[in-house]
């Protein structure tokens, strides 16, 4: 393939960011190829806890979460979407205070969050502990099944006529004539590139001599075997260190961002029993009947961030025609929407909401 038959854009990373952007730029008329070192949607986008709660979104990202919320309803059953509403719980006075403070700011940012009485909480969720000090409720909260990310986007990409290659790690990028990407499946040429490599953004950007200060958290999720109905909405904790939902099949998914071991560079993360245990304890404290459940799997995924914990979304500094999208906190929730914004920017259109300049000074809160 010569430079003029190159793809309009090659997207490196087939997670939710890369795939959502691919759909947008293809709809805008570009020829697109998506490359992933593994399978589509087996990174963070395929292993995350799937919580789509406004209650746990960062205040400044709330408008993005709100704008994009309808996209999940549209994806619907194909991604296991369920809008159940969600309760966030405080178990002592200190947490109750924190909850009030945080939810007030989030309400001001537009999330329809209200505080509910213990009676109302118990009527809705009779299996919750009675030791709740304060609880907030958001009817917009819900979840989707992250394990379906790969299956879903493979279908969407195929239907949109977008090529993708799995097992296709980009190991070098040559810029003499557009972009020439070295992969185990040969050289792939493109006029533009989007770096959407999640927790692997730093080594990928380094191929272009750009230093992105990307770190990775090693988040842990556990799941039980099928249980009789215990909870019907998403249950969270004031600190954010517990998220829990019971799927239609009866399994209970327990997350909250407890940290496992390992780095993206090692290629594998592993759970740390010493953090799994308090995560499970918190879950059991909230829903005592979980004590009888058996945990069938615990796993980790790498969640990327930069020092100010806001997204990288925009032009890659110093490299014309290269873009980067990643490090979005709550990125599963916001991914489909921010992917559209990114796609619009690549297409040269004004995005509906501002993006997040990857060239900013990360030590200052500039957003």
């Amino acid at each position: 393939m010569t430079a003029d038959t190159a793809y309009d854009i090659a997207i490196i990373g087939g997670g939710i960011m890369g795939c959502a952007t691919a759909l947008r730029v293809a709809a805008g008329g570009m020829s697109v190829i998506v490359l992933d070192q593994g399978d589509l949607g087996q990174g963070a986008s395929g292993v995350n806890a799937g919580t789509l709660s406004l209650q746990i979104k960062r205040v400044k990202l709330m408008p993005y979460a709100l704008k994009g919320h309808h996209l999940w309803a549209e994806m619907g059953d194909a991604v296991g979407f369920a809008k159940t509403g969600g309760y966030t719980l405080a178990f002592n006075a200190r947490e109750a205070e924190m909850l009030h403070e945080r939810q007030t700011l989030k309400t001001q940012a537009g999330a329809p969050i209200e505080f509910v009485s213990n009676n109302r909480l118990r009527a809705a969720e009779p299996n919750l502990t009675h030791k709740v000090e304060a609880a907030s409720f958001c009817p917009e909260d819900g979840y989707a099944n992250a394990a379906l990310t790969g299956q879903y986007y493979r279908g969407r990409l195929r239907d949109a006529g977008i090529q993708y290659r799995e097992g296709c790690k980009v190991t070098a990028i040559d810029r003499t004539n557009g972009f020439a990407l070295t992969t185990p499946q040969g050289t792939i040429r493109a006029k533009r590139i989007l770096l959407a490599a999640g927790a692997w953004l730093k080594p990928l950007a380094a191929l272009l001599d750009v230093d992105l200060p990307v770190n990775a958290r090693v988040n842990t999720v556990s799941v039980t075997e099928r249980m009789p109905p215990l909870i019907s909405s998403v249950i969270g904790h004031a600190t954010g260190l517990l998220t829990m939902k019971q799927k239609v099949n009866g399994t209970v998914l327990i997350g909250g961002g407890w940290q496992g071991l390992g780095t993206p560079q090692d290629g594998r993360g592993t759970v740390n029993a010493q953090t799994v245990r308090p995560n499970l304890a918190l879950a059991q404290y909230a829903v005592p009947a979980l004590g009888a459940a058996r945990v069938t799997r615990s796993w980790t995924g790498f969640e990327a961030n930069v020092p100010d914990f806001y997204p990288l979304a925009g032009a890659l500094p110093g490299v014309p025609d290269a873009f980067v999208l990643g490090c979005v906190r709550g990125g599963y929730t916001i991914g489909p929407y921010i992917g559209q914004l990114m796609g619009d920017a690549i297409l040269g259109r004004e995005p509906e909401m501002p993006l997040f300049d990857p060239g900013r000074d990360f030590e200052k809160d500039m957003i």
Partner: protein
Amino acid sequence: MDEHYDTAVIGAGPAGGNAALQAARRGLRVVLLDEQPAPGGQVWRAKSASIIAAPTTPESSAGDALRSALGASEVTLRASTRVWDIRRQAGAWTLQILRDNTSLEITARTLILATGAREYVQPVPGWTTPGVIGLAGATALFKHSLSLPGNRTVVSGTGPLVFYVASEIRRLGGTVAAIVTPNSRADWARAVPAMLGQPKLLARGAVWLADLMLARVPILWGHAVSDVLGTDHVTGVKTRNLRNSLTGTEFAADSLCLGHGLVPNIEAAQMLGVPIRHVASLGGWVPEAEPDGATNVEGLYLSGDGCGIRGAVAAGLQGTLTGARVARDLGKSAPTPSLRQWQRAARFGQAMTALSHPRPEVQALTTQDTIICRCESLRRGDITAEITTGAASANAVKSGLRAGMGPCGGKYCQTAIAGLIAAQMGKAIADVPPPTPRSPLRPLPLGQAVGDFDYDDLPIPKPAPL
């Protein structure tokens, strides 16, 4: 309670038991952990408390010898103990164990994984019907409770185990309706040279076969069970001649023992970073280890059928090699034992493994509606449809369908699923690695893992930025 050792050995079968004995003999502080109530592993599983007296068998005698050697040794035995997670932290191994409904930690400088094997059962229509049990699984009933799978049993599968199982059923007073084995007489003839190295085992097999023939038990060579009859319990089986695909005799039975060889339990080694490769003659995916068990991971050793199906004799010998290696690596003096005996035993074991391999002709007996993943009741058609729409790996099939996310954790579906992916995509089976293994190693009762706690003592980190 915290316990610290020089070496922790997981699995008290021939491999782990002998590794522990050897390491202790060389002066190491050793703990031997097994989820079974007594040492012996699969092959030498101990009798339950329900048996007050019974005639001995070669397996029970060998097991008793191991149990009394361990009893007389300095090895700390932790039976009825399930290891659910293992990590290397600060230069030592931390094991999470469940014992007496309580979760505890054990630490050790070195770790020997001697986790043995499990069974592969090739799915055929009806194999999920109650009354169908694993062929190797049946031996657990014989050894532990000296009980039978039913009153009239069809014994079917590959390798030597069919004859052992049939013969044990007869010894314990049961009736064998038929033996149905995909192996041909010619397959067996080819294995004879390797078997000559273990004349005792060869002779034992000859007695089983002669007895079955004298008793006029039908033996269908080159046949497989093609259908299990019955809805909520087994009522019989249909058979098929694998050479000409003609329907064979149908047998009435209330139970079926079915198995197609063994698969090493590699999950723990895999999770700890030992590379795996596919070696059909060793039972499929095996972690890479030296003959004495050393691996690429510091302080981690593997021994026995868990690193390749070479059989019980080889497992025991390899255990001794591994125990000595660990002792040497920890600065104790131990001779470097010769590999010769182990190699000879391994040759026998691998010949049996070769007879037991999953066979494409049996794989072809599944239909669109045959269940492949028992935990999630996923049928072959579900799996192949997922592959058709682009799921190109075991991980992708698992994510899309939950195949491997049920309580067994994929232990009984992944070999078949890999076979389907390979066949449909025209790949070699060695290019379809198993899905990422996940902790816990066994389903973990949440309340037991957590134990008693005070809410205020939970180490809740500082919350995420607003």
